[in-house]
């Protein structure tokens, strides 16, 4: 009974998280038409990445074609995330959080060597940012099995 209640709560929360990220993207996109603030680009980029990471609802078992579509959607979101972060970094190359976020996107895309370059850059911007570096992947937020840290790769 408790387990059911917990899983119901978990699903409700997950659904709200997805909805919040989508709302964030919608409103940030509207705001970005007026001004290309680097921090807004960074946040939208993060929202795209989280959405890609969250993927499909846990209860849904898609057929192979749906699976393919979901995969394409995930790739599109990751690409959008990269575009936003790259633009944020063009506007403000010393944005520590944007550098970290790009490292996270690169980890998620399996581009570990490039992620390492970002980590080095982050430490160059702020040598005391090791604490943040340890948080780079952010995967522990979604799935325990993906809870890796670049420091341990």
């Amino acid at each position, binding site marked *: 009974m408790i387990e059911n209640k917990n899983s119901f709560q978990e699903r409700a929360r997950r659904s709200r998280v997805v909805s919040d990220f989508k*709302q964030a993207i919608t409103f*940030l996109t509207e705001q970005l038409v007026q001004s290309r603030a680097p921090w807004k680009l960074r946040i939208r980029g993060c929202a795209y990445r989280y959405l890609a990471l969250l993927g499909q609802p846990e209860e849904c078992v898609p057929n192979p074609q749906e699976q393919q579509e979901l995969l394409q959607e995930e790739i599109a979101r990751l690409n959008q995330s990269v575009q936003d972060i790259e633009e944020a970094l063009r506007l403000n190359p010393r944005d520590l959080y944007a550098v*970290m976020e790009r490292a996270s996107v690169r980890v998620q895309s399996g581009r570990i060597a490039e992620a390492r370059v970002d980590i080095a850059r982050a430490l160059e911007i702020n040598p005391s940012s090791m604490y943040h570096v340890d948080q780079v992947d952010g995967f522990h937020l*979604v799935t325990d099995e993906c809870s890796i840290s670049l420091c341990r790769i």
Partner: protein
Amino acid sequence: MAHIESVCMRLTQEGLRHQRLQEHRQAISVYSQALRLDPLNARNYTRRGLSYYALQYCHLALLDYNRSIQLDPTNGATYMHSGISYSNLTQHQRAIDAYNQAVRINPHDASIYYNRGNSHSLLLMHEEAVQDFTKSIELEPDDGSGYYARAVATLHLMAADRRGIICESPCV
């Protein structure tokens, strides 16, 4: 007396102009002149504090904010700026205390809830953070950053619940 008032007003206008142009050193110098003439002007302490903060002199900013609060404890904006400085110094509990005062005075200011939510997140108080971001969204439903922050705080809450332990501090 009238002469001093008019000089102070002129200096304040000059300070505001420098701040708009991001000339914070000049703004500090001008506000300091104004405060020498009128040391009881709470708003000018807050304004000078903002320039100190912009130059990352958070301790000096806080001295000015505190002086301003002593002179005028009813200005919610000063409490909020004070919270932001404490947060920058990673004194998150003090930041929350300052935001609580700001909320008491300006309960309809979404940015105070948003900032307090960030401080709660950094103290791993994810439930409180989610509540703050929800309030911020209620007050400003068109602001994308509130939704983003609530989503991230909820993920942290889920991760903490799943593990039955407090998870690591978030990267805000």
